[in-house]
């Protein structure tokens, strides 16, 4: 008997590390989850589907499931001036995100790895600005923006989106910086690295996935923003969400072209969100939850 057991244990040792099998088993709760997912996703699916229909197929009862797809709606949308709106959105979103990173990374660094005595106060302040109802400042902002001559100018949005995203970005990136083990900085400093060198060669590479996720989340919030855009822009600087306003009552039952416009508006951010999925929670909860 002893020989049998020693043989078995020998075999176990030789086969290398035991890997857990990923059980792709069929579970009834899995089915429920799938149904829920499809249900939640349905409006989005329907939106994309409708965008490929002819108007005749779009607003019907019962709804049309099978049809010949066409790109006519996207054509129409591009001819109806979605181009400028798209460019405005890209400009406002991209530039504001870059500025957010330029301001936010040093701030997050200061609040995490080299804490100052008033760290909690500063964090508190950043968060409180995010909780300020923007409706309370839209009036003076309107007056100020108009006095400075930036009404209907995309730069107003760039500045406002930066202010809107900076708190979340600082919080998120701070939580990533806090994950860097303090010993790494100590080791680098013993090796002879100045602070700047340590940051560049050791910390930034470690934190860069977090910075990427933060950027994606800033892009999501900036792109989707509507309130500032609708009040401070008119024709020249309108962003995608504002462009969609034109489709409310004016277009009547032209649902197909409306869906195409909506899809164009929503798609970039959906893609960003899908890519940043794993870090989304951190951004949403102010970096509190991983």
């Amino acid at each position, binding site marked *: 008997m002893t020989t049998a057991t020693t043989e078995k244990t020998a075999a176990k040792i030789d086969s290398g590390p035991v890997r857990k099998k990923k059980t792709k088993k069929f579970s009834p*709760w*899995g089915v429920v*989850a*799938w149904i*829920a997912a*499809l249900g*939640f*996703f349905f*409006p989005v699916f*329907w939106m994309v589907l409708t965008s490929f229909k002819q108007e005749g197929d*779009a*607003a019907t*009862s*019962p709804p049309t499931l099978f049809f010949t797809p066409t790109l006519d709606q996207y054509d129409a949308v591009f001819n109806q001036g979605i181009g400028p709106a798209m460019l405005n959105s890209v400009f406002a979103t991209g530039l504001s995100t870059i500025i957010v990173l330029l*301001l936010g990374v*040093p*701030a997050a*660094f*200061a*609040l995490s790895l080299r804490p*100052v005595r008033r760290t909690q106060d*500063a964090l508190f302040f*950043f*968060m409180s*600005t995010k*909780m*300020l109802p923007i*409706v*309370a*400042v*839209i*009036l*003076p902002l*309107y*007056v*100020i923006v108009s006095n400075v001559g930036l009404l209907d100018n995309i730069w107003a949005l760039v500045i406002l989106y*930066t*202010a809107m995203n*900076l*708190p979340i970005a600082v919080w998120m990136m701070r939580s990533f910086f806090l994950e860097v083990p303090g010993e790494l900085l100590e080791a680098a400093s013993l090796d002879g690295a100045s602070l700047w060198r340590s940051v560049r060669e050791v910390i930034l590479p470690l934190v860069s996935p977090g910075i990427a996720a933060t950027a994606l989340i800033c892009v999501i919030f900036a792109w*989707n923003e509507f*309130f500032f855009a609708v*009040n401070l822009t008119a024709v020249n600087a309108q962003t*995608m*969400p504002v462009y*969609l306003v034109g489709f409310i009552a004016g277009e009547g039952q032209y*649902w197909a072209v*409306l*869906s195409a416009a*909506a899809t164009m*508006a929503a798609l970039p951010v*959906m893609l960003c*969100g899908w890519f940043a999925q794993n870090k*989304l*929670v951190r951004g*949403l*909860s*102010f970096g*509190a*939850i991983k």
Partner: protein
Amino acid sequence: MTLTADTEADAGQNAMAERVRKIREAQDLGVSRAEGWRRRGPLLPALIFMIVVTQVPFLFTLYYSTLSWNLVRPGSRQFVGLDNYIAVVNDSQFWSVALNTVILIIGVVLVSAFFGLLLALLLDRAFFGRGVVRTLLITPFLVTPVAAALIWKTTILDPTNGILNWLLSLVGVGPVDWIGQFPLTMVMVELIWQWTPFMMLLILAGLQSMPRDQLEAGQVDGAGAFQLFRELTLPHLRRFIELGVVLGAIYLVNTFDAIYMMTQGGPGIASANLPFYIYQRAFLGFDMGQAAAMGVVVVIFTIVIANFALRLIFKSFSGKEEAA
């Protein structure tokens, strides 16, 4: 002999405390001003930017709220002290809208937290295609709110050709003018659809941070699945749910897009919330003074909720996760 031993020990402690005090004094002077500013330096640009862009306008709002100022009547700007606030308090429309706001926030937050909890529980187990399911489920949160509102208003809720009414017609329920008859409720439904993923993600993070060996210990002790959930999982999840509710409430105070796109606050002000109402007064009615006063009231209202939020985030979550 005991007396001398005690006083010796005391003397020893005093000397120690004295040394520590001297060291601390030296430390305070030691961290040079230059070093302090060098550490604060990287923080300053962001800090200054935020103060200028957010606090300064709010000070202006406070100022405007003390003025009687209508953009349509130029030259009529004059200081009226707290008159605007009194008018706001007496404005029955304001209160009705405030009630809408509260109903909206509470309804959306609670229902989406509930559905979020259910979905999070479903997603916590492994099954085929779990990653895809999660991706599908978070999509509503990512869709541009105005686009989503538009799609809901037209393709789903439209009385004649909307999908909802078609589905209901299959079971013989007559066509309903959803947005016309239940404007606030429909806005809430759309918001619940958009916010459930948010709650689900937070609660899922909570579920996944739960130490597994606690559950295993419970199983070995003989607890059934429901008991495990009630006694172990739910208490652990409490602070995540709380965080979701509070953060959701804060984000939802500002909700504007759905109302603008779906109902324009109507009919009348039946589905207007505070931000929308203020927007109407300011940009459609041009009454800056009143709108400013209302804005200040909303801020006070938000500070109350924000207090809970900040306390939760700092207390429960700052630092490392507590030990099992």
